[in-house]
């Protein structure tokens, strides 16, 4: 009897063992996970729910390429690109299209309605009827004009190629250069690894320039004296990522900074002192690899994002 129990137990044990082996042999799946895989998608999808703005409108353009966006005092939207400028009324309806020769990388509209275009190495001024009012001399063969701002009789031009900001009068005469490295005055010099170099004029009448290689904003007087800086270098949402960001910015309500970045495409809002405030648009709202998300803010404080990959003006407003 005792021997019978041992035999039965041994058989059960044997069957159990065979069953485990069979399961392992036939049903277990090989572990194909790659321990060295580096997934960047979580950066692109993170914080989507934290955006406090929502996209309310998209405006299509008929230009072949789009590079710059600006608004005027009446709320009209201007975009510049290859061989043309397109003007939209505040509702998004195309009101006119001006033909130009070449690529206008940047655009700004003065108080009297003149359209200033940054054309690689020089500035062209056009009026709304489609006539060229003037064409300035070249800033040199290495010039890459990426941004323009007009304030009264002063025109500020960001030259990414020569890493300097020019202050000119309305006729194109150079008044002074801003931002050249000068340890004596504490000007650090612009670090511009890629051709994204933006500037703007704040309500208090000072010039703000992005120093992308330092992930910083620098505030200058019109004479070129450095007043203050703030920087936020970080891969996280609170900072500016990559080698050189932000690529573009605009002022919101005269005091806040709306910024856009490349590498991780996102649009955010910062306080005047650099405190991160909120998210406007998250990376998953853009095609991966989108660069040059130029920004503008209209009279209604709507944030206008120029999307050169989707060929759209995308309008963002606070969530209700």
């Amino acid at each position, binding site marked *: 009897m005792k021997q019978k129990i041992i035999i039965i137990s041994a058989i059960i044990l044997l069957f159990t063992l065979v069953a485990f082996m069979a399961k392992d042999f036939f049903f277990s799946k090989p572990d194909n996970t790659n*321990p060295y895989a580096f997934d960047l998608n979580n950066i692109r999808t993170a914080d989507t729910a934290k955006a406090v703005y929502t996209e309310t409108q998209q405006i299509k353009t008929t230009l072949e390429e789009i590079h710059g966006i600006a608004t005027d005092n009446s709320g009209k939207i201007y975009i510049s690109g290859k061989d043309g400028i397109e003007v939209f009324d505040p509702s998004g309806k195309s009101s006119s299209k001006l033909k130009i020769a070449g690529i206008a990388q940047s655009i700004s509209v003065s108080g009297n309605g003149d359209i200033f275009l940054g054309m690689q190495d020089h500035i062209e001024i056009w009026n709304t009827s489609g006539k060229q009012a003037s064409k300035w001399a070249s800033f040199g063969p290495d010039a890459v004009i990426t941004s323009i701002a007009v304030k009264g009789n002063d025109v500020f031009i960001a030259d990414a190629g020569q890493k300097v900001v020019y202050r000119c009068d309305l006729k194109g005469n150079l008044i002074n250069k801003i931002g050249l490295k000068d340890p004596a005055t504490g000007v650090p010099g612009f670090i511009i690894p890629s051709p994204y170099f933006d500037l703007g004029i704040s309500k208090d009448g000072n010039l703000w320039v992005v120093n992308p290689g330092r992930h910083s904003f620098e505030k200058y007087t019109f004479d070129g004296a450095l007043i203050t800086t703030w920087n936020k*270098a970080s891969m996280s949402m609170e900072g500016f990522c990559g080698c050189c960001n932000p690529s573009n910015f605009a002022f919101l309500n005269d005091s806040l900074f709306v910024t856009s970045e490349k590498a991780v495409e996102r649009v955010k809002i910062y306080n005047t002192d650099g405190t991160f405030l909120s998210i406007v648009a998250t990376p998953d709202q853009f095609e991966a690899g989108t660069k040059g998300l130029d920004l503008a803010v209209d009279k209604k404080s709507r944030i206008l994002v120029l999307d050169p990959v989707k060929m759209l003006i995308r309008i963002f407003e606070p969530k209700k």
Partner: protein
Amino acid sequence: MQNRRDFLNLLCRGTILTGLAATTGVLAFRSVKGGNCELGTSCNNCKKSDSCDLPEAALFRQTVWQLDPTKCIQCGRCAENCVMSPSAVKVTHVYAMCGYCDLCGGYLKPDTKNISTAAENQLCPTSAIKRKFVEDPFYQYTIDEPLCIGCAKCVKGCGAFGNGSLQLQVRHDRCVNCNECSIARNCPSEAFSRVPANKPYLLQGIENKNGAGKIG
């Protein structure tokens, strides 16, 4: 026909031309089939290419494996699939392309809070990248090659956030030039190919007189 001499002359010319045409045809046919090889397969897929006496095989043996950075998707498989341990694939730094960034996407983890050399901030699992201050705000990044395992994390980070100056390459001081490269067999983007041994590197962003990349 004017005379016998003209007839013989014509006959000789015809014979020579026919012979030339036939030889050209045979050579062309053989080259399409795979040269003198009776199997008609390319050496790349032939298991006998290591010992084969045919001139095509000799020429094949003068080539080496290399990885094309433009096709590489930085999947990390080079670290695990090479017969060498650590892998013969290692990262190479093309300094001409580097932005010498403080916030380096190839050096720092994306979620890092502080920009420092602390181990928890480094993207490289073996700390094979060394960071050195050059001048404000520039930092130089060098590869400690014995530590590099070819996992491509830094390559992916550099490409996503920077200029793509970090690139994977098969290092020929380590590669044993297997007939059938086990990494190439497992490469999902088919980035591996045989390249001439006298131009063994395929780095992007630098040029030299020979058209061959130099290891930096």
